[in-house]
């Protein structure tokens, strides 16, 4: 922690940053996002297994710093979304200072003690416990026991289903959707100034939480994130209806890897999958 606070203080004292987005504890010792505006504020910074939030979402939500750059404390998975935002021209690399953190995985249920069973599924297949890209790196890697990747088995099962069975599975899941759009609001890559569901002249998607409206919303979001979602799973964590959104996003991500050998958010100089035309791209899936 001292390392994190020392670096943050140095960034303020050398006037390199206007603010730093990090994590702090509240009076009940719960870890939540916290924006430090001064060297003094940084003393509240913490990082531990409860630092679940992907703070990259704030990079496009908060106003630009009046002076200096924006500092951000980020795990390896979250840094992928920062790189994705740079690849998609939403922020410039020079505008942010990334304080990468070696991560020993995070909790699944925030109100329960961290344990092997209570570890976020995404940590199971994490390849960036030590971030791949950063300006500063803090923390130490420890050996951690990881839970079974239950979702992978579900994905394989879904793959083997008929179209009708898949429809029934997702109909039952989407039925629970209340259209609170928490999935969209926590997503660092859902940064559209006006979301298609909010467009009312004309209305493209039913705003009602009916089967039709819920399918339209959840499928549109999955399509918009295809080849873009970096798998932070914040949408699934935020969903009050407990819809397993990561199954959809991870599946689309695997298609991008398997069909186009593309992983979003790994290289700031790489053109994006959807935003780039390559004559060698496969087209056998078209007809």
């Amino acid at each position, binding site marked *: 922690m001292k390392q994190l606070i020392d670096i943050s203080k140095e960034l303020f004292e050398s006037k390199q940053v206007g603010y730093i987005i990090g994590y702090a504890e509240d009076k009940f010792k719960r870890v*939540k*996002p916290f924006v430090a505006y001064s060297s003094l504020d940084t003393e509240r910074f913490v990082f531990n297994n409860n630092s679940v939030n992907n703070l990259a979402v704030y990079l496009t*939500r908060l106003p630009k710093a009046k002076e200096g750059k924006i500092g951000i404390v980020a795990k390896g998975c979250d840094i992928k979304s920062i790189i994705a935002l740079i690849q998609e021209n939403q922020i410039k690399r020079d505008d942010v200072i990334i304080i990468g953190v070696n991560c020993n995985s995070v909790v699944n249920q925030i109100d329960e003690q961290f344990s092997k069973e209570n570890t976020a599924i995404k940590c199971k297949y994490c390849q960036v416990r030590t971030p791949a890209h950063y300006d500063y790196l803090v923390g130490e890697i420890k050996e951690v026991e990881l839970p079974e990747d239950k979702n992978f088995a579900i994905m394989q099962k879904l793959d083997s289903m008929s179209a009708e069975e898949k429809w029934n599975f997702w109909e039952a899941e989407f039925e629970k959707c209340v*259209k609170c759009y*928490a999935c969209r*609001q926590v997503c660092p890559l859902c940064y559209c100034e006006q979301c298609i569901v909010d467009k009312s002249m004309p209305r493209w998607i039913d705003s009602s939480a009916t089967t039709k*409206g819920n399918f339209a919303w959840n499928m549109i979001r999955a399509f918009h994130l295809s080849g873009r979602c970096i798998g932070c799973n914040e949408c699934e964590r935020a969903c009050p209806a407990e819809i397993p959104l990561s199954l959809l996003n991870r599946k689309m991500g695997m298609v991008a890897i398997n069909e186009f050998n593309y992983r979003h958010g790994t290289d700031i100089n790489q053109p994006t999958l959807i935003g780039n035309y390559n004559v060698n791209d496969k087209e056998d899936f078209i007809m």
Partner: protein
Amino acid sequence: MNTYVLSKDHLKNLALELINTGYKVISPSKDGRRFVAISSADDLVINSNLKPSSVSMKEFFFPKTETLFFYKRNKDEYDLIDAAEVNQPQIIFGAKPCDTSAIPIVSKVFNWDYKDEFFNKKVENTIIVGLACKFADENCFCTSVGLSPVSEKGSDLFMIPLTENTYACKVISEKGKKFVSNHSKIFTETIDGKSININEIKIPEKRFESKEVKAWLDKNFNHKLWDKLGENCLGCAQCAFVCPTCHCFDIVDEECNHTCGRRAKNWDACQFEIFTKHASGHNPRNEQDKRYRQRISHKFKYYTEKFDEILCTGCGRCTRGCPVLTDIGIILEDINQLAKESISNN
């Protein structure tokens, strides 16, 4: 009114009888995370120690989407067709005081200048069986909004655990009394209501004085506190949609096909940017801090002024589910602290 003794077997038999006679029987789900309509009496969950469900039971009175009427194009005119009337009786078991009390609170707004027949009909058709609550975590604050783990507000019948397998069931309303007399085979054994020991139920300490909070809100429409709150909030509607008392809705027309459609009443929330966006593009609540101020002010100031009720039951759902853990309880404590400081400064 009488108080009866019910065993778990009595309750199961009652649930079975109700399912068989066409009632929609609603209970917390097995994992306690939501309220569900059950089709087997074995799925009935009565447990005072449960954490409040992550989503409240309001959808059984105020569904997330509800058809008001259908329309059909008939040459150059439109025919209006009433939505099917829902007359199914329903009964809710295992509802905590922070769930049941929400019904009379929001009934006031649904019966203010216009009587919302959709809401009223469902309330009329529902028997609410409250259950004393033995759960309390750092997110709960029912005692700060004038309620308690044994509040009977909003219940037709109210149950208090006596032993592991038995409950005292108090009759609270006339509707409850009628229900009991219709099921007299189950409701047989009575006890003296005054003899029930509720000392075992821990009453959480008050965390803030709602009157002082309101007095501060009256004078601090502009305050730096709001800037800080808006900063973390991501502007989703999780808080409003899991809340038992949030009741804002949007009215939309949706096409079924090019000749017909439906008009629907859908949940809406003040935390959405488009909630107050005018057709001109102007938005009086254009920033998240203004929207968060609205959430607090509506619950603890405007509603209190208009309806003499606090629009919050202290259930803590909004905090538990918030993706960034914005804690309304801590915020109200902070406001109360500011209120105390401003009193002592004057």
